């Protein structure tokens, strides 16, 4: 951009507009020093409209003012990276000229207020982030956190969120291939709703959201603008409190049908070469989309809010600029293309209005029916937001908790503990959730939800992609650095279990208030862990999202850095399912069990103790396991592979035995761990959550090959037994001791744990609320 020392021209106050006073500045969530900086940038007092613009763009949500320096430490490059962080979605290279665009985004605050619409609009937003790269969305995932299901409010939020996620994605026709749901007290009143979208494109069709070409026009495409969600971005940047009820922005309502039309129209506009750039009007709406596109392109823009189609009359420029009405896109194009663009939009029953143009003076200028109401130097507006380096200090109680151990005796015996664990909503089957999501539309789903990772075929090619989202907030809470590593390791293990090679990640960092030293400690340490793991696995970070201020009056949430990962299955027919498949197959345990129960589900569920030191993550061992699984899959020696994480070895074995939701009955298991165990007490052996482990099965004649491959990759492996008959028992022998469970009983427990808790009035309310539509 030409560095012209521009002094913005005057901007006018509208008749009746509130003057900017210190109180008004505070209402906009801007600090005194931030306000001083604004005055410096402008060389005068801002108008209310300008203050609104600054408050949106300098909100945590848009500016990343507390996280930027930390995010810079992530590895973001690699031969597979086509587009790293900074665009609407990251893009990785695939074989045959294909590429994958993917991104994860949070919609936590809106979902706390209105679970259905909050979740639905979250899905709509992430879809738009992906198709604005020129990619066709082909898979969705979601990561959800709620307070315990014994509270009616939590059940209502859970039911409403799931329905909202489902209704939006189902209507647009994107299959949901995976996700995760966990329940813990910290999320009561502050649920987390993270949605991830994965899209496919030809690498040559990639389009970036950069305004350029002085004289090019800006068009507003899609739905009309209403007063929805004004100040959503700054709302998302503060703690939820009693006052938030009153300050709550008007609920944004999703229109998935309009979203689908917008997706088709946008993809057509991109592929026909009619446009220069396109961006979703997401958080902070027209303001952030136009300002960011201008800044990325190094140009100025001028828009006239009087030209923006509105749903209600009498909207002020302030409202039009900050509205977060859904299903709108900002498009930049040459003026001689307007007619053709309008033809495409009309075909998809959408409106497209010219609202401004690209200028050469670097000023972000807004008019309202001609009158200039905002004139701000564009680059400082986007880039000069103050950056903060908050204090970072671990809370003393966190240290103590890590060094402590359980004092309560086990609530139940070693065998019964498994039934308890499988009845824990966090561990139990999420069938109640994923059956509400279309998982087969697009006719490319190779492995749907219910396994380690979702796998889809890229039609017309031989390859497929594996996708997953993972986070174990328990481990992050106890040891943020190791926990951060563990989240990436688990995601990679899930991907590798299907036979895929991990390619890269997107992340959604959900934390409390970063201005609190203990929260910022969690944040920086978790990020350090994520960065180290990504470096070790060659899975660069291609983008993501930070969601701070996840605090309710009860305090901060558990730190929840969710990792969304994509992996490549060179030959999709080599995909490996998670469940045991054939009686007589051999079972091999990969990886080493040390038996440290710190941070385990066993301690928290059976010994009422949330604490201890989780096992350190051995990144080299994880990497070796990933490579082994991919090679074994490509040689087709595996019948099943399931990663071992929450709930330990016994849980992994039980899940593999129970089978998928449509399996009819599970399969028995007969194994002997006497030699494998090496003096580890039974509860530690069965329930410790060491990483770098997987349970695989293979045909009897292939067991030697599996063991040889494991040796080649330096992965400890033990053939411990075999898959039993249909409806047979799960039997684990430990020398003289033997533990036995009925797989049929375990299966019932595992699949019924959530449904049986959800047959209640609040759930019926959530389910009957949206009778009309879908």
């Amino acid at each position, binding site marked *: 951009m030409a560095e012209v020392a521009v002094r913005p021209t005057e901007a006018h106050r509208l008749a009746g507009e509130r003057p900017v006073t210190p109180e008004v500045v505070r209402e906009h969530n801007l600090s005194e020093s931030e306000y001083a900086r604004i005055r410096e940038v402008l060389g005068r007092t801002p108008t209310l409209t300008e203050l609104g613009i600054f408050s949106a763009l300098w909100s945590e949500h848009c500016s990343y003012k507390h996280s930027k320096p930390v995010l810079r430490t992530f590895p973001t490059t690699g031969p597979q990276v086509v587009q790293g962080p900074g665009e609407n979605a990251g893009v990785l290279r695939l074989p045959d000229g294909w590429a994958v665009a993917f991104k994860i985004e949070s919609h936590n605050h809106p979902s706390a207020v209105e679970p259905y619409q909050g979740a639905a609009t979250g899905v709509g937003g992430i879809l738009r982030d992906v198709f604005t790269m020129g990619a066709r969305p082909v898979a969705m995932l979601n990561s959800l956190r709620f307070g315990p299901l014994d509270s009616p409010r939590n059940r209502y939020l859970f039911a409403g969120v799931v329905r909202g996620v489902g209704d939006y994605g189902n209507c647009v026709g994107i299959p949901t291939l995976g996700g995760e749901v966990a329940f813990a007290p910290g999320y009561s009143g502050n649920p987390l709703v993270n949605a991830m979208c994965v899209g496919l494109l030809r690498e040559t069709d990639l389009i970036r959201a950069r305004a350029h070409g002085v004289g090019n026009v800006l068009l507003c495409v899609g739905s009309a603008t209403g007063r929805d969600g004004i100040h959503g971005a700054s709302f998302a940047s503060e703690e939820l409190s009693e006052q938030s009820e009153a300050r709550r922005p008007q609920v944004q309502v999703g229109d998935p049908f309009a979203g689908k039309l917008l997706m088709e129209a946008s993809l057509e506009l991109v592929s026909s070469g009619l446009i220069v750039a396109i961006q979703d009007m997401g958080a902070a709406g027209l303001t952030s989309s136009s300002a960011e596109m201008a800044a990325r392109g190094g140009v100025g823009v001028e828009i006239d809010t009087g030209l923006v189609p509105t749903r209600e009359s009498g909207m002020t420029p302030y409202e039009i600029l900050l509205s977060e009405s859904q299903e709108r896109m900002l498009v930049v194009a040459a003026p001689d293309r307007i007619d053709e663009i309008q033809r495409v939009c009309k075909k998809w029953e959408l409106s497209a209005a010219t609202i401004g143009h690209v200028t050469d003076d670097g000023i972000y200028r807004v008019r309202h029916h001609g009158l200039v109401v905002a004139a701000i130097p564009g680059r400082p507006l986007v880039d000069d937001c103050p950056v903060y380096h908050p204090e970072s200090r671990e809370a003393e109680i966190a240290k103590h908790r890590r060094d402590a151990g359980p004092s309560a005796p086990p609530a139940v015996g070693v065998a019964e503990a498994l039934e308890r664990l499988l009845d824990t909503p966090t561990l139990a089957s999420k069938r109640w959730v994923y059956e509400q999501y279309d998982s087969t539309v*697009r*006719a490319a789903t190779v492995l749907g939800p219910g396994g380690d990772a979702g796998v889809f075929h890229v039609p017309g090619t031989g390859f497929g992609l594996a996708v997953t989202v993972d986070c174990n907030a328990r481990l992050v809470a106890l040891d943020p650095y190791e926990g951060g590593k563990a989240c990436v390791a688990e995601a990679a293990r899930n991907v590798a279990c299907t036979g895929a090679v991990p390619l890269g990640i997107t992340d959604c960092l959900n934390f409390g208030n970063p201005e609190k030293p203990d929260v910022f400690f969690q944040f920086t340490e978790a990020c350090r862990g994520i960065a180290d793991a990504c470096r070790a696995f060659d899975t660069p970070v291609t983008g993501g999202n930070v969601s701070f201020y996840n605090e309710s009056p009860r305090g901060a949430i558990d730190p929840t850095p969710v990792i969304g990962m994509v992996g490549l299955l060179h030959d*999709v027919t080599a995909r490996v399912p998670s469940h045991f498949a054939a009686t007589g197959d051999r079972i091999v345990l990969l990886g080493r069990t040390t038996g440290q129960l710190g941070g385990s589900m066993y301690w928290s569920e059976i010994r009422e103790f949330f604490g201890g030191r989780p096992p350190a993550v051995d990144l080299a061992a994880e990497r070796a396991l990933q490579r082994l699984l991919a090679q074994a899959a490509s040689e087709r020696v595996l019948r099943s592979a399931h990663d071992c994480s929450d709930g330990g070895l016994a849980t992994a074995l039980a899940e593999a035995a129970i089978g998928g939701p449509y399996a009819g009955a599970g399969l028995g298991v007969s194994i002997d761990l006497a030699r494998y165990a090496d003096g580890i007490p039974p509860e530690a052996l069965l329930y410790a959550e060491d990483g770098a482990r997987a349970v695989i099965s293979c045909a009897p004649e292939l067991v030697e090959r599996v063991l040889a491959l494991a040796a080649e990759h330096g992965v400890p492996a033990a053939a411990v037994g075999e898959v039993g008959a249909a409806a047979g028992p799960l039997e684990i022998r430990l020398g003289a001791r033997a533990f036995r469970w009925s797989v049929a009983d375990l299966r019932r427990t595992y699949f019924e744990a959530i449904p049986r808790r959800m047959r209640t009035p609040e759930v019926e309310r959530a389910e009957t609320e949206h009778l009309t539509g879908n």
Partner: protein
Amino acid sequence: MTLRAAVVRFPGSNCDEDALRACARVGMDACYVWHRDTGLGGADVVILPGGFSYGDYLRAGAIARFSPIMRAVQRHAAAGGPTLGVCNGFQILCEAHLLPGALARNERLTFVSKPVDVLVERTDTIFTSAYQPGQRIRIPVAHGEGRFTADAETLRMLEAEGRVVLRYVPSGSETGLPNPNGSAGDIAGVSNAAGNVLGIMPHPERAADPILGTADGAAFFESLAAWSPGVKAGR
């Protein structure tokens, strides 16, 4: 002879590509027809695909049935042309009175996405001739409004005339993945009296390729591809 199949795209259709691919896979010459078109481009076979036409707002299929293309579909069906509606396509055919009954909200109120087991009750139709009589197949459903409903007399007539082409394994049965939506008589698919119009809730196009776990739906498209336009389409 290569049959020409037209897949109708309404705003909000989202199984159009899947249907097109399933047709192409069995060698049909498949093309899209836009809902604002007024002709079917000489198609032998018409498919109304799944999705959420007009967002399924008001009622699934209620608005789409007024699309200009529906006149051509009506003429095609009246002339005995094979017309298959899958999921939303079924809903549209009912709303357009090309098929009897209506598809109401699922009994359990939630959207349901999972595989189901269905029995192919009639194999003497152009859509199912490649199946064995009584064959049990596993294919996915994905719908919120799939509970087939009609008055008692209509239901009796459908049974008497053998127009229930696909039936879910009854709920409560010990084996198999049963009726997912509470539909009357476990009906998963019905035809018109002449037999050339069929509506089904399950998605055979999502089970037409072995890599997807089941190819049980492929025979729908094989049946269609094997049909010869010289032969009357009805039973």
